């Protein structure tokens, strides 16, 4: 076999790629094609027929643009929250935790090892309307006397932030950890204050991590529906909830399929804009 490969060296990459790419083609690309086909169908379950129904897209957009926009707003806020919350923590781990850094990294990732649903259900428990946390908040007047934390926009965004925290923290850590401490020493030697050193050296060098983290957090968050389902009311429904309901409850496959493509398309557009702003090299690194 070594002989064969030697003579057909150009084939090697294709042979290496073949099994994996075949899998992805059959089970990712082809289904996307089917989904596209479905998005142009019309009719009621179970009698759909293909009819180049492009109006599915326009009616989906006009009917559900609220949820679409809301998803991006929630995902955006959650991503920023993750960044703001994670950065100091990760900075501390990278620069101050010393020999314990791997332990703390483990702790950051730890929540990830408890099933997603069980984690979110635990929050339902902690933030219960009649539970201790809410009662304390009411007593100290942070919440109104009949206020609550669950079934609010706050709860949904908080849930998304919590559940996607590791996606932001890990890329941030990877890039912060690679920063050579000597660069910071050099900055100090050149009379910069700690704040300046941070703004001029650390922050720019951690940029790839920030970019990677925001992408890895924002994209799945935009399509999430579990947090909105468990922690919100119908007024917090995200586009993921609508797609899920259309697929699983109303069995309205054409609308669901077109909504799926609209969601993916919007994410891709957001990605392109982001890449333009941030600089395309940062994305592929």
């Amino acid at each position, binding site marked *: *076999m070594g002989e064969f490969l*030697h003579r057909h060296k*150009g084939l090697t*990459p*294709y042979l*290496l*790629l073949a*099994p*994996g790419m075949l*899998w*992805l*083609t059959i*089970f*990712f*690309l*082809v*289904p*996307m094609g*089917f*989904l596209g086909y479905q998005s142009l169908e019309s009719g009621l379950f179970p009698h759909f027929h293909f009819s180049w129904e492009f109006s599915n897209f326009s009616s989906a957009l006009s009917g559900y643009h609220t949820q679409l926009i809301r998803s991006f707003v929630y995902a955006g806020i959650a991503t920023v929250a993750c960044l703001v919350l*994670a950065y*100091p*923590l990760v900075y501390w*781990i990278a620069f101050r935790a010393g*020999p314990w850094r*791997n332990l*703390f990294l*483990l*702790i*950051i*990732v*730890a*929540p990830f*090892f*408890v*099933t*997603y*649903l*069980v*984690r979110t259900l*635990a*929050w339902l*428990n*902690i933030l*219960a309307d009649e539970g201790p946390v809410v009662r304390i908040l009411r007593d100290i007047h942070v919440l109104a006397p009949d206020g609550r934390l669950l079934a609010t926009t706050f709860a949904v965004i908080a849930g998304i932030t919590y559940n996607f*925290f590791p996606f932001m923290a890990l890329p941030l850590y990877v890039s912060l950890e690679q920063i050579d401490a000597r660069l910071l020493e050099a900055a100090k030697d050149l009379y910069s204050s*700690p704040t300046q050193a941070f703004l001029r050296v650390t922050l720019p060098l951690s940029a790839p991590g920030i970019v990677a983290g925001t992408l890895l957090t924002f*994209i*799945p968050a*935009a*399509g999430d*529906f*579990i947090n909105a389902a468990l922690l919100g009311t119908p007024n917090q429904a995200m586009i*993921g909830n609508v797609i899920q309901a259309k*697929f699983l409850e109303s069995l309205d*496959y054409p609308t669901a399929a077109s909504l*799926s493509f609209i969601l*993916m398309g919007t*994410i891709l557009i957001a*990605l392109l804009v982001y890449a333009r702003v941030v600089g395309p090299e940062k994305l592929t690194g």
Partner: protein
Amino acid sequence: MTTAAEALPTRARVGVMSRAWRFVARHALTVYALLAVAYLLLPIVIVILFSFNHPTGRFNYVWNRFTFDNWLNWNSVLGIQGAVQTSLEIAALATLVATALGTLIALALVRHRFFGWGLTSLIIFLPMATPEIVMGSSLLTLFLNDQNTIQLGFWTIFIAHVMFTISFVVVTVKARLIGFDRHLEEAAMDLGANEWKTFQKVTLPLIAPAMLAAGLLGFALSIDDFVITYLNAGPVQTFPIFVWGIARVAVPPQVNVVASAIFLVAIALGLGNVIWQYRSARRTRNQAVE
């Protein structure tokens, strides 16, 4: 009356102020870090705690009394054992296959420049940018349509899990391959080994850690996956699907037990890795000293 700080000449005063500020800042950061860690671990603590609870009725959210019963009879709830078994089997199988396929792709992408390189990279990237609900439902249209009917179950879940894991494996292994020192392989080949032997004895051991990391990541993703699995599972239940179903009525403490067990095993493995790295680092240091 002037304070001691005010009595100092200006530059020294600035020095004291900035030192004081740095003290606060340094410890504020530590305090923040510890608070953040507490926030991250709070639900986990609740989950583990309530796995030891003996609830009065059906609902397990008020602490009643401590018991080991739930841990001893963790499989007394109808369906839970099957669900856990299915989850573990699928995760193990899917991880193996995805790691193998993904590593091959990573090798191809890093070591060769070929026609279609960009397209391949794009196709690898797409699943990571696709919302799970879209991936799951599109896969469902492949299985259930007018032309064919594939029975939904274990193998459809397996297919789905391999599909979304491959991309993560590729990214993980690629990162390691990019920093790989080709000289080692060249040296091996200069010493007479053919490509296959070189791959076996030099390359593979050196990328093994990355493959392991990718495998662990894949395993975690598979065990925890809900959305894609839910849509393609048919009658089969994985643990997340089981939890979703039973949460509609009442979550029994045994669910907490299983979730805690998975968590503790993962933490144990992680801790083991941490300690092992610490030990080997210390050993290297000691050796350097001698």
